[in-house]
């Protein structure tokens, strides 16, 4: 993977896997010996949040900024004040988990001026070609444009996170490699990485920029 930017933002269509990518990317940065802070600014999803991995992240030495109300009953799109600090202070790598769709990306606008001023960021579009409304490169482009219209930052790269959850096979991943390439061509963006569950990483080595990830564990 190319040298990480100071700020990495994971955006993308609803349910494309932003949280898993952000959590695993933060852990990877930490493993490179870098100071890392992960901020969950997903104001859309009520359940299944970065916060669910908070313990894993903290144990690994990743600082976590969670929405004060994530996984609670407060259905309020409030952002924690520490996020302002995170985009302005430059002593830590910042990974931001942005909410789904254009609505989630709106929250980003508040921080864009600081991120632009520093100009050391990656804004990544996470795409899963097994999601029902982004099944083709064309549909993924439509979703990307909707999000781009409500962010004040330009996308800098694509993450191919095509998966069927725990049932994903190597063939499922490999089938999406040409689709991701076509999507990158249409969007005029480079592929940052192909996210693959750890146990499949070896069998999909033909895919470009393989990045092994772990999924959050559910009790059912």
């Amino acid at each position, binding site marked *: 993977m190319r040298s990480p930017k100071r700020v990495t933002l994971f955006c993308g269509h609803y349910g494309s896997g932003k949280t898993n990518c952000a959590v695993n990317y933060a852990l990877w940065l930490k493993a490179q010996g870098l100071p890392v802070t992960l901020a969950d600014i997903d104001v859309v999803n*009520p*359940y299944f949040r970065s916060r669910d991995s908070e313990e894993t992240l903290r144990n690994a030495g990743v600082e976590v900024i969670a929405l004060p109300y994530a996984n*609670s009953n407060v259905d309020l799109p409030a952002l924690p004040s520490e996020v302002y600090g995170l985009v302005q202070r430059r002593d830590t790598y910042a990974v931001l988990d942005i909410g789904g769709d254009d609505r989630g990306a709106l929250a980003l606008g508040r921080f864009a001026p600081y991120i632009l001023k520093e100009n050391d960021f990656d804004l990544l579009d996470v795409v899963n070609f097994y999601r*029902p409304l982004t099944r083709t490169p064309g549909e993924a482009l439509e979703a990307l444009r909707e999000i781009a219209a409500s962010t004040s930052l330009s996308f800098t790269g694509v993450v191919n996170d095509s*998966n069927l959850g725990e049932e994903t096979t190597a*063939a499922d991943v490999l089938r999406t490699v040409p689709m991701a390439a076509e999507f990158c061509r249409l969007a005029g963006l480079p592929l940052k990485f192909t996210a693959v569950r750890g146990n499949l990483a070896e069998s999909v080595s033909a895919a470009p920029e393989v990045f092994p990830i772990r999924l959050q564990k559910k*009790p059912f």
Partner: protein
Amino acid sequence: MSEKVLMKGNEAIAEAAIRAGCRHYFGYPITPQTELAAYMAKRMPKIGGVFLQAESEISAINMVYGVSSAGKRVMTSSSSPGISLKQEGISYIAGSDLPALIVNVERGGPGLGGIQPSQADYFQATKGGGHGDYHLIVLTPASVQEMADLTALAFDLADRYRMPAMLLADGTVGQMMEPVELPAESAPTVEKPWAVTGTGMARPHNIVNSLYLQPDELERTNFERFERYKQVEENEVRVEEFMTEDADVVVVAFGIAARVSKNAVVAARKQGIKAGLIRPITVWPFPKQAIEKAAAHAKGFISVELSMGQMIEDVKLACACSRPVALCNRAGGMSPAPDQVLDAIINMQGGNE
């Protein structure tokens, strides 16, 4: 090559409804059900369907009433507080012998409660909810795949028996993502000669109505309707039994509680305890016979619920209180962990020797 897609439970309902020929959706956003409405808003305009965000849940259910009168497949969805608002309309739809699909992705209550998952609308769904003598066919999905499959089935049963059906899901099944094989396109298989579609000057007027001016006529309609309910009870019970044949301890759970319970049953078997699981897929009609059958060899039942204990009453009735029935529950938006259910199984096994 895989034909599967990765979907949220709420999205799977929406797509399955479209594939079942539903082209009319009326709703109002509420967490944790909103993705269903959002999906319909994106898809319906592209396929010539109607997505309408009504000004309230009450309006939405009355729009459903109207479209169903015209013989079209139609649905609405909400979460607990919104479903309470719809109850008057649901009673009218039942009283007019109309099919419709109502989806409840439950959250914690009572009142405004919270947005985390719950199963505390069991009484409301299975015992009435609105006024008058009526039933809904109530289906309880436990996976994203079942969210899709039971949606198709609900439309079918509703048409066949001319009564509203409800998908009673919880917030977790609504929000979680799993691979789904979407059902094939289908269409209504029954004629709807009662539909208000215009006479073309060729037949008498059809009248869809729940008002009866003569009490004896209303009584007759009620008795006739309950004859139909009897058929539903005889023919449409759906239940999954897991390791129940020789079980000493039988867990009864539906929806997300059943998934947690299945893990606990497997763990109990590993410890040498003969545990089993009865998972009602229809909670009305309730799988009484499965409970009755298990009562012949089980020393007791455990009702696992995300509520203060509602289905437990049906379990007690089904086994005629011939066995102890324990409650293992969390409430208010919290879910039981497999260990909590395992502890309950161990207690039941150890007690009542």
